[in-house]
């Protein structure tokens, strides 16, 4: 199974019926499948912190939502991760498409992506990065389970090692 199909099935298994996002090319591989599946409701936001807020509201009303973003948008979420998800103990699985690693062509992606694991550590948000297709299920199932058991956000980071690098278009 492609890693993106594994995510879709894991969300279904855990009854995470809503997804919020600001697009990135990596997560779009998952989101496009969720959009095509009538069991899921997929909600695009104008800015990443808004997507965190919507996901928090879905949980507050008894549902479950995952949130998808690119590493460049992570900085936009920090106050919402701290004051909303952590402060209120709201579990949201966070999927972050990581730029700035192997074969990156855009140098400004590097300084925004590199500090993300350290920032998540500082916020006490656990994070995992599957590198091989055959470990995606273990990580994604495990992270979603952990999020709801701990009532905390948990992040899955998609690096080029697993998802490949974006090519410069010219």
């Amino acid at each position, binding site marked *: 199974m492609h890693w993106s199909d594994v995510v879709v099935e894991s969300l279904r298994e855990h009854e995470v019926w809503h997804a*919020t996002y600001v697009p990135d090319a990596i997560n779009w591989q998952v989101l496009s499948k969720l959009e095509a599946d009538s069991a899921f409701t997929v*909600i695009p936001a104008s800015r990443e912190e808004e997507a965190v*807020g919507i996901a*928090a*509201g*879905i949980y*507050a*009303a008894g549902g479950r939502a995952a949130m998808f973003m690119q590493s460049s948008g992570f900085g936009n979420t920090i106050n919402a991760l701290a004051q*909303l998800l952590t402060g*209120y103990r709201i579990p949201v699985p966070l999927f972050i498409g990581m730029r700035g690693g192997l074969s990156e062509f855009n140098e400004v992606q590097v300084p925004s992506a590199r500090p993300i694991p350290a920032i998540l550590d500082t916020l006490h948000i656990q994070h995992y990065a599957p590198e091989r297709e055959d470990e995606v299920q273990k990580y994604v199932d495990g992270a979603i389970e952990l999020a709801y058991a701990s009532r905390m956000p948990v992040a899955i980071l998609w690096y080029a090692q697993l998802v490949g690098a974006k090519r410069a278009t010219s």
Partner: protein
Amino acid sequence: MLRREGIAALVRRVDNEPIIANLGPATFDLYASGDRDANLYTWGAMGLVSSIALGVAMAAPDRKVFVMDGDGSLLMNLGSLATIARQAPPNLVHIVWDNQMWYETGGQPTHTSTGTDLGGVALASGIRNVARASTVEAFEEALDQAIREPGPWFIHVDIEETGEPRQRPKVVVEENLVKFRRTFTG
């Protein structure tokens, strides 16, 4: 009119419908009007109260969902109006208490004091049901219409501040969230 007069009018009209309050005075005044499990008080994440309410409205389509925003906070997250317009949840009622200032931080004038019209921004964002009120009577009329008719609704309310002292609500946020969520899950 005062925020607490508007809150009293709203609270008289709800049963188990959720009310989600912006950080600062909206949270304080809602709590002072009488605590209820279906109140979600925010203490931070400035700007996001309407986003939280959008999530609540989408996850609970059978209940009217009321959110009380502030002018300064909405100015921090204007994109939320476009996102609400795009999803168009018919059960969402977005109330903005516009005192033309960041009251909680000392009353500095916000951009609505120099002419920015939040109702106009809502309309231009694609929200078709926009009302404006400066008196309790006009607010009640808009609220009754918003309760009767499908939305999303945006009710822009001009309010005055009297500077009366407020008590900090005795709320533990995690507990508030758990109780609020139980009003949906049983």
